[in-house]
């Protein structure tokens, strides 16, 4: 693996050069209290001092709404059009290691058996520049699910802030090509030990003990009691870096229209409502149970990966302040 260094004062020029070259740069930007991944027009718009963005980097490749195809009438025929491929590369700058590790699950889900055309189209043209976490808060629990705050999975380039500048690990070919294009900003360097620049995140629970306890948790009698504050909005699933459920909607008029893929969430009642009116997950407690078991049990059984990366967004964003950490600990207690 190659290692580079970019001086602290040069990172601004590097980002501005990326933007000037026509690439779309998505970086953390502060709105009011929260920080979101947003298109930035210059380095100054990027938020530097934050723990975690409110929403994850999955939006760059699996956005909240995308056109699958458009259709129009032409006499007696119907013509379909594929969506235009993105013209330029997208650079996701400042992706935390938990989001990066989420791509293990996302790429398994979308690309492994039947590669998803739209996900692949965007993923191939997106370069992920990760950023090691130098601090965390009490809602981070990546270390409890087998991820470290300096994990390089999912990133094409990995940055770690040091006293001398940003230490960069070149992880993939895509990352290497980008560095070669902008080589004048980088200096060669030796491999360094990232430990002293990496946050120390305490384990919130023991994941192997959880694995044992969770397989029998479907009939746990405390699901209802622990999920009472949940009012069933979609925020946790939408901010989750590994949630992939989607809905397909058509919008059309007499001459044509489009088919869209949009985010969907199991937290909403209509997610499982049948056309007959029967709903197998009628109560919010049943929907909450589904979410927890999906994250810690079902995907493990199906894909051999947990679909929780410990980013803590669901806890920070929840308007009723439910906590997946508290929930898991409650299950462990029994």
């Amino acid at each position, binding site marked *: 693996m190659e290692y580079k260094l970019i001086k602290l004062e040069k990172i601004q020029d590097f980002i501005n050069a990326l933007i000037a070259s026509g690439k779309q740069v998505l970086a953390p930007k502060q709105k009011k209290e929260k920080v979101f991944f947003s298109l930035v027009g210059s380095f100054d718009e990027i938020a530097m001092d934050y723990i975690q963005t409110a929403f994850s980097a999955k939006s760059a490749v699996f956005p*909240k709404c995308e056109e699958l195809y458009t259709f129009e009438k032409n006499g007696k025929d119907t013509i379909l059009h594929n969506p235009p491929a993105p013209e330029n590369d997208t650079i996701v700058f400042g992706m935390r290691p938990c989001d990066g590790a989420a791509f293990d699950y996302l790429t398994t889900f979308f690309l492994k058996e039947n590669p998803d055309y739209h996900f692949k189209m965007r993923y191939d043209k997106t370069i992920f520049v990760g950023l090691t976490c130098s601090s965390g808060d009490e809602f981070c629990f990546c270390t409890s699910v087998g991820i470290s705050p300096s994990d390089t999975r999912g990133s094409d380039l990995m940055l770690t802030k040091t006293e001398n500048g940003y230490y960069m690990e070149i992880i993939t070919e895509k990352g290497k090509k980008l560095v070669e294009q902008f080589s004048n900003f980088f200096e060669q360097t030796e491999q360094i030990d990232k430990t002293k620049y990496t946050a120390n995140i305490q384990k919130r629970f023991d994941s192997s003990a959880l694995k044992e306890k969770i397989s029998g948790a479907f009939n746990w009698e405390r699901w209802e009691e622990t999920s009472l504050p949940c009012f069933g909005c979609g925020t946790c699933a939408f901010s989750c870096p590994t949630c992939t459920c989607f809905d397909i909607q058509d919008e059309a008029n007499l001459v044509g229209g489009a088919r869209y893929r*949009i985010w969907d969430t199991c937290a909403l009642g209509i997610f499982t409502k049948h056309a007959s009116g029967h709903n197998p997950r009628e109560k919010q407690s049943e929907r909450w149970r589904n979410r927890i078991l999906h994250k810690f049990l079902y995907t493990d059984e199906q894909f051999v990966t947990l679909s929780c990366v410990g980013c803590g967004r669901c806890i920070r964003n929840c308007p009723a302040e439910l906590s997946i950490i508290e929930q898991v600990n409650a299950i462990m207690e029994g």
Partner: protein
Amino acid sequence: MSELINKVSQFFSSGIIDLFIGYKKGRLGEGKPAFFTKPEQLNELIFDENCIVNLAVYLRKPELKKYSKIGVLANFGTLRALLQLAAENQIADGQYLILTVADGKVLEFANLKAIEEYVANNLPKPNPERIAFLKEIESKSREERWEFWTRELASCIRCYACRAACPLCYCEQCLVECNQPQWVGVPPTGMGNLEWHIVRAMHLAGRCIGCGECEAACPMEIPIGFLTQKLNMAIISNFGQVPGTKLEPDYALSTFKVDDKENFIR
């Protein structure tokens, strides 16, 4: 605080209630919703001006049906929501035990009429910061306002947290779920999002009690509370009907006056 805890404890031990909905300390010091079923749990009960979640939103949850009598610790928004829900026949008098804390003293409401009186005597003045923000928006040109709102609403992800957090949004089947006809586009395009927020604002016009939960729950930090606030202000100034203050229904959009202004009609 100890007066509150003692009182609720007594309600439990004398069998008056078997569930108490209140608050406990949240992650940033504010109050988060908490459900107490045993008096031993009550040492975590808190109530202060940072307890802003409107607990009336939980009252129609089916999981609560198994409790025979529920007590609710109500902040001002919750009291107004209870009145509005009663006016709309969603809750009955005596169905819940309602408590609040004012000037350090615990107040127990004997019935909904007592809440009506309390609300009438304590209606707060509108928040000046919010009025200033509205004035600022209204001073912009039409194009600037359109640009501002369509841009803000474009970032909506249609999580429906605003709908879920609102105690007055209790429809078993929301208009958005209707597809014959499709009134509101489901995909979060600029159009679908604008349609959703227009429908939400119109369905809450004259019913919104101004608790601000919609805006607090919004994960994208969109100032949606201003849409319903503006409509409420317009209804109060045009028709004098204030939601969440009367037990008798007095809904602006199902009533009319013969001399309602019509200077915009040709």
